[in-house]
């Protein structure tokens, strides 16, 4: 799971030739993409268009960006969005302290122009994620996470960055990207994004995976878990998701659960083990009651299993 900064060279492919190659590549770095996921990722590398990834929490939106970075051998630059995120936090900021020091260290008699020229140089610029992604020498993967948490104003600012890959700084002029970053924006759909932003992106809807697909994912991350148990686990998770919960279990949580079961040495998912380990996949007090009642019963007590 952990993103190694420099993956072994044989995993890396700087420009994949087909959607199939992307699928294979993502698989090799430990991410099992769905049909459309691989295709859209491939198109985005080809066309240089940002991808807007939407879907419920915990279906691997962020993980996709990480996997792409690993697969393409690029650095991942991540901008985590939150309410009130502003340009200073996302683009760049002047390093006031350094500027001040610079001014104080100036021998007396230096002209204003010289100083001004000096202190608004790149040396005094603190670059934030967007700036880093654009000015990087090496092509990067830029992940703008949870874009729906920001205000509309911030979205508007992103437009310039996303369509032209450039940032204008009044004192310095235009900073253009030297390389073409791959941009992924993720959204949990808590707010409708603006048309203008959507227009610039390819759209990818990620949903909870099909049973077989999720089984494969769980098997990949917890290979020691016996096949039958993994299948049962995925089925149970599917049942839990079908209930009306505050927070349905994510893929990461089914993996966690698989690992927890391994750690406990459980041999069968019955009502007892389920109630004991349920807290791994269900994280709300009220949800737990619902799940215990609806799913726990279906599983039956160990005595019933003949």
């Amino acid at each position, binding site marked *: 799971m952990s993103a190694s900064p420099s993956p072994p060279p044989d995993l890396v492919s700087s420009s994949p030739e087909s*959607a199939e190659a992307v699928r294979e590549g993502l698989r090799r770095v430990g991410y099992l993409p769905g049909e459309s996921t691989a295709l859209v990722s491939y198109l985005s590398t080809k066309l240089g268009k940002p991808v807007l990834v939407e879907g419920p929490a915990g279906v691997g939106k962020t993980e996709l960006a990480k996997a792409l970075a690993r697969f393409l051998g690029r650095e991942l630059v991540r901008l985590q969005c939150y309410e*009130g995120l502003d340009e200073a936090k996302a683009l760049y900021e002047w390093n006031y302290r350094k500027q001040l020091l610079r001014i104080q260290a100036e021998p007396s008699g230096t002209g204003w122009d010289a100083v001004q020229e000096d202190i608004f140089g790149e040396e005094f610029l603190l670059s934030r994620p967007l700036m880093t992604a654009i000015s990087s020498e090496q092509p990067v993967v830029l992940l703008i996470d949870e874009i729906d948490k920001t205000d509309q104003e911030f979205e508007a600012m992103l437009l310039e960055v996303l369509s032209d890959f450039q940032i204008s700084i009044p004192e310095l002029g235009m900073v253009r990207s030297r390389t073409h970053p791959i941009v992924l924006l993720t959204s949990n*759909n*808590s*707010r409708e994004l603006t048309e203008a932003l959507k227009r610039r*992106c390819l*759209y990818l809807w990620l949903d909870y995976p099909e049973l077989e697909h999720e089984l494969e994912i769980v098997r990949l991350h917890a290979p020691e878990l016996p096949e039958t148990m993994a299948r049962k686990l995925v089925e149970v998770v599917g049942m839990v998701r079908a209930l009306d919960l505050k927070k349905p279990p994510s893929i990461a949580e089914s993996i966690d659960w698989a690992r927890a079961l391994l750690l406990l040495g459980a041999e069968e998912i019955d009502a007892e083990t389920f109630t004991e380990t349920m807290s791994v996949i269900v994280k709300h007090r009220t949800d737990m009651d619902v799940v215990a009642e609806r799913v726990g019963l279906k599983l039956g007590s160990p005595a019933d299993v003949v």
Partner: protein
Amino acid sequence: MSSEHDLSSRLPLAARILELAEELRHEGVAVGTSELLDAFAVLGEISWTSQEDFREALAATLAKSQEDRRVFELVFERFFFRASEIAAARHGIHEQDAAGLEELSDDQLDALRAQIAAALRDGADGAMRDLARMAIAAFARRQEGSGVIGVDVQRIRRALGLRAEPQPELPAGDPRRDGVPREALRRFEALLRRELERAQIERTGSLPPARPLGELDRALPTGPLADLAAVHRVVAQLRRRLATQGLQARGHRRHAHVDVRRTMRASLQTGGVPVVLKFRPRRPRRPEIYVLCDVSTSVTSASVFFLSVLHALHDTFRKMRSFVFIERISEVTDIFEHERNFKAVSERIASDAGVADISGYTDYGRVWSEFLSDVEDDLHPRATVIVLGDARTNGRDPRADVFAQVAARAGRTFWLNPEPRLYWNYGDSVIAAYEQYCTAFECWTTAQLEDFVRALTRPAIAASR
């Protein structure tokens, strides 16, 4: 992406894509020119022989939300089905009559039934299409088709004994015994419909008129108002949105009061030079909300929806008082404050509120006067009154004058009516009498609820500025 030569050689396809985009626009998907350009660029990158890739690539560029995506799927299916059928009809290509199906014996029919049921159970999509054609061929011979496709589909489904419910009377081992998966059954019916349409087009050599997508096709599988869970999810989303909107307002620094203390503290970073000015945060006044919710029988279907809205509003607004009414009014603020669980809330309202006194019919006139006497002293221009109800008075006096008094005292008054606007003021609906004192919204889908929420949150910010 593609040179001029390329494009001209692809023109027939280009025209097709434009037609598809036009149909998408008709169904309400906003497809702009830039999206179309993207679509063409994308088509240069993928192989067209794989239908899956072709569709996914177009979808990624043309449909930019989950709802759009669903509409896209439907339109794409319909469009290319029709396009290929008409092309076939024009070129006079006919399918070979399914040979070897002259007369099926009962045994063979049973085998076919079992085969189809097994394919449905295992979700074998590839086999399903062939099986659908065999089923049609087999049953077309046995009985005359009715000519109406929808009827034929159901007839064939019944003849095959396919049902979503378990059929315990069948012998063990029959794949239909535990019921066929609903989703697979739906897909199979769609295939039957498709094959029947195909046959019809072939017979007549012309296309039936295109049918626009109905609300039903368009709705997501978990459509709003379908069940409480769905409503609740949407309301939860709404709550988040409401919460962020309040904060957004805080971000607008229209009038700025410098916070000297914080500015000085921040200036320590820059050696005492106040480089960064810190402003006093502007805290929007919390709106005070009074909600009146009709829980009578005429709005039964909507009241679950309304109660969950009420529930969500309670979580967001601190200063809020809620009332439910049928014939009389009853304050339920306490219930909402003490119960976090929605189910418990609705149960307690049903049992304790004591609103259905005598007849169980809404008496709006009485409700207004009781409400006014309850809260007269508390109502002030910053308060917002929201009424959830259908304004059906059962022939009683609407007492719009009392309602006018309420509206005059409160800053803003909104009415959410669960009936489509078409039915307003028909029968005993007297919404017109109230509408002159308040803003009335049609509200029976979550989208409409969102419109209302937008109206509710925005002016409140403007007013307090």
